[in-house]
């Protein structure tokens, strides 16, 4: 079994209008190599499901998103994502704005192959008013109405992991998996970028297998992408690149700023990108965030 593939071959398999789930959380462990590859492609009209950060911002800036399913889009230390704001304030994207936990339940329902999961989350809020697709249901067990969070099945999930082998065994050693396991299970096809490629035997050592959170059958393809989460973090390997994210956010204030950012950091390709942001050795020294 060999699932190794290149990022451009992964993106070549994507189609306009697909529903794409993006792993990670805000400025953390986003599959940015895939995002930049999508930016280089003619793909459009995507439905994106994400705990959003620069991934969503960049896809908004490039006009790739038709519909966004989200609970927030933020770079955390830069609370408001500039390109996401611009897209929203110009009314150029359709949205399903839901609670962070509802997004998790939607992925979980898709992963379980059930149409919905009942919850109290969302009751009494405008989440229900603005997303009429989310219905209330009567309970067969009590006299209350419950929110029926619909499944969020994904055509494709894009994730970044610390390391993987060619069979698709993926390892995440950072302190938080976020919802990546649910993305992998909610998607018809899951592609990962991995900072490090290892032999299958690596997972047999010590407690290495304890950091594997989904079965390889959930992984369709593996791309070797050192620093593939940059400029977002991949703890414990590297923190997020504050300087780069500030430069990215500042570009939104300049006329033609996005085109300039793209020219400098996207059009050049991944190898040159890594060189332009300082190289692997520099990225791996980026400090982990402290709050």
């Amino acid at each position, binding site marked *: 079994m060999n699932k190794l593939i290149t990022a451009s071959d992964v993106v070549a398999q994507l189609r306009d209008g697909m529903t794409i789930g993006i792993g990670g*959380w805000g400025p953390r462990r986003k599959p940015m190599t895939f995002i930049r590859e999508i930016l280089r492609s003619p793909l459009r009209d995507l439905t994106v499901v994400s705990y*959003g950060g620069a991934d969503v911002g960049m896809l908004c800036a490039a006009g790739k998103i038709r519909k966004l399913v*989200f*609970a*927030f*889009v*933020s770079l955390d230390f830069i*609370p*408001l994502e500039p390109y*996401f*704001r611009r897209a*929203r*304030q*110009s*009314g150029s994207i*359709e*949205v399903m*704005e*839901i*609670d*962070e*936990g*509802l997004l*998790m339940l939607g992925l979980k329902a898709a992963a379980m192959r059930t149409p919905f999961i009942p*919850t*109290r*989350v*969302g*009751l*009494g*809020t*405008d*989440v229900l*008013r*603005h997303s009429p697709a989310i219905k*209330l249901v009567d309970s067969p067990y*009590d*006299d*209350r*109405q*419950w929110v029926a969070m619909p499944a969020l099945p994904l055509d494709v999930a894009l994730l970044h992991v610390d390391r993987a082998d060619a069979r698709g065994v993926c390892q995440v050693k*950072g*302190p*938080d*998996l*976020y*919802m990546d396991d649910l993305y992998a299970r909610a998607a018809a096809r899951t592609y990962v970028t991995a900072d490090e490629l290892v032999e299958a035997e690596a997972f047999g050592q010590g407690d290495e297998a304890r950091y594997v959170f989904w079965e390889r059958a959930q992984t369709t393809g593996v791309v070797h992408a050192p620093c593939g989460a940059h400029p977002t973090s991949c703890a414990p390997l590297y923190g997020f690149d504050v300087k780069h994210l500030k430069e990215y956010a500042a570009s939104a204030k300049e006329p033609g700023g996005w085109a300039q950012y793209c020219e400098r950091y996207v059009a050049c390709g991944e190898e040159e990108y890594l060189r332009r942001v300082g190289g692997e050795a520099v990225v791996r020294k980026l400090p982990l*965030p*402290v*709050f």
Partner: protein
Amino acid sequence: MSDTTLVDTIICAASAAWRHDGEVLATGIGMVPRLAASLAKLTCNPDLMLTDSEAWLVAEPVPVGPRGEYRIRRETHMGFARIFDNVWGGKRHAMVGPTQVDRYGQANISMIGADHRKPKTQMLGVRGFPGNSMNHANSFFVPNHGTKVFVEGEVDMVASAGYNPARLARGWGFDDIDIRLLLTNLCVMDFGVPVLAGAFVQPARGRDCGAGSAGNGIPGARAR
């Protein structure tokens, strides 16, 4: 009163929000709520649970900013999925900083404007507010008491459910919502939660912040 003194006073007053909570997760979003939760843990409620704002439950409050030699004292893992397990079980009291609050205690951090499809100002999104509001106790900290925050009518996007009878689904009541303290730079208010009666002294003594008299637009709330 100098700014420093005011902030210290607010943090002390805010810490009392957790006094009678027992063994729950205390989450303070933003510097003042975070310090208030930390203070509560060290004073009035040592049973509280705190996180490092990243992925661990810790045995003692984590210092703010760069930690030098300090190592966090971990108790258990507390990644985001685990946070939701805790939220949905109800053993949590969060203090958050909404951008808008209305007379029902409904709160907004999502967006400003009348049209959700095209907001005048896009902010964060609803984040975890909907889930928080239907699952556990919540308090609010508003650093800039005024009509911009305390809006007429309803907030532009109800992210956090409040005591609004028109929005209750069948079978649900006010007992299912638990809004505790509403702290501002001027005063402390609540919605008449009996468990908090006499919990502490109003900190901004001498300021007129009675409901209705400060133009705060929340007749449902009362000054403490």
